[in-house]
């Protein structure tokens, strides 16, 4: 399996990994065929995501994509994340091999779920 150097770099040094105390929103993405799981925590100020943390269980690419996804989400307007496209997440690690495409789906699902959770909590 050939991975991009960007993916490997994120796997080696995951950014924003860990839990968040009293987050404004949380969301999970899961790929039940392989049990991969990503959980995202968001801190939101004035409609913008100011801090992101994640936890992931899965193969190396899922961990790397979650790290890249956390960077992608930081500083973005919450509305953006409601519509976050999985391709944008995949591009954040310069692409994934065919057998590991699900890593971007799991992470994009988790981030979108967290954004929806924020909206739900505000209502």
């Amino acid at each position, binding site marked *: 399996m050939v991975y991009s150097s960007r993916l490997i770099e994120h796997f080696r040094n995951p950014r924003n*990994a*860990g*839990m968040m105390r009293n987050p404004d929103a949380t969301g999970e993405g899961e790929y039940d*065929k392989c*049990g*991969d799981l990503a959980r995202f925590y968001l801190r939101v100020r004035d409609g913008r995501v100011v801090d992101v943390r994640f*936890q992931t*269980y899965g193969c*190396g690419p899922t961990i790397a994509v979650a790290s890249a996804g956390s960077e992608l989400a930081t500083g973005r307007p919450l509305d953006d994340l409601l519509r976050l496209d999985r391709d944008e997440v995949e591009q954040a690690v310069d692409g994934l091999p065919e057998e590991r495409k699900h890593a971007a789906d799991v992470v994009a699902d988790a981030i979108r779920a967290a954004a929806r959770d924020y909206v739900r909590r505000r209502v």
Partner: protein
Amino acid sequence: MTRRVYLDHNASTPVHPEVIEAMLPYFGERFGNPSSIHGFGREAREGLETARERIANFLGVAKDEIVFTSGGTESDNLGVRGVAIEHHAVLRTCETLGGQGFAVTYVPVDEYGTVDPDDVRRAIRPDTILITIMHANSEVGTIEPVEEIGRVAREHGVPFHVDAVQTFGKIPIDVNASGINLLSFSSHKIYGPKGVAGLYIRKGTRMAAIQHGGEHERRRRAGTENVAGIAGFGKAVEIRERDMAAEAIRVTALRDRLSEGIGARVPDVRVNGHPTRRLPGTASLCFRHVESESIVLGLDLKGIGVSAGSACTSGNVEPSYVLVAMGVPLDWAMGAVRCSLGRGTLAEDIDYVIDSVEPLVRKLRAVSPVGTA
């Protein structure tokens, strides 16, 4: 440069320099077809027969009971299908049994992956035509009681096939004491070249060829023999005969150093397989709440080659069926990693692996939501 440590000897082994040396003439001046009757052919034939004799002596069997094939998979196919087809033809049961015409009974294993010979006895039916088993499981390394199972097979007059691909040249095999009719064994697991293997067929075992063409291998396997590969295989066996016993002791000590070292420094680790009846170099470890492939990737980045116990194919992760059959819980089985040591493995390599595993697993667990509140 990053240190490189290869701990995947159950997958394949590097060809021994003496083996390469033994193969070279058969790519050059002794290139002939061993079926040709002229001098060029006779030279090639000599290389083929010398290897056959060496392997037969190693197993304590007759030369003409050894058939060369292209790999362990082909040996298994020839052994199992060859017997099945022969019986099929003789009994003419194809129409009555329908479809493929065969019923297969799978015998369970215990928590160590060991088959109980009494379960084999109970599974035998009046129409059983073959009993087949792996001598040792390639993933967890548990060695099966083939002598006892062979006794059961003999009592019932059922041919007995053993896949010894992981054990041949690593631990002693006594085909006579174990009543083995068919034994598959391979070259590239014992520092020989890939693409060469053998099947021992006990004299009198009724079986059909599954590959048709020429009259090679006494009509049991058509196709020109891979003479250079077979010459190398013969050399590899000669070296195993010399080194096997001492190496088994050395590699077992390193294997235990590895699993004990990791167990002492990493919490929630279990060693799979039988505590004592296990292949010398095989350590199958489960890291709870960590996914196999993330460990394999993390170690790969440190120059270490191990293999994942659970495989993710096209996005589907299946826990190892071997571990599932042994009753290993899913949250452990998903984190299975196999380390298989060999003749080139050093104590420093093991210590480097232990030093690499500990921070990696700690890091992977730190990012994991599984197993935390």
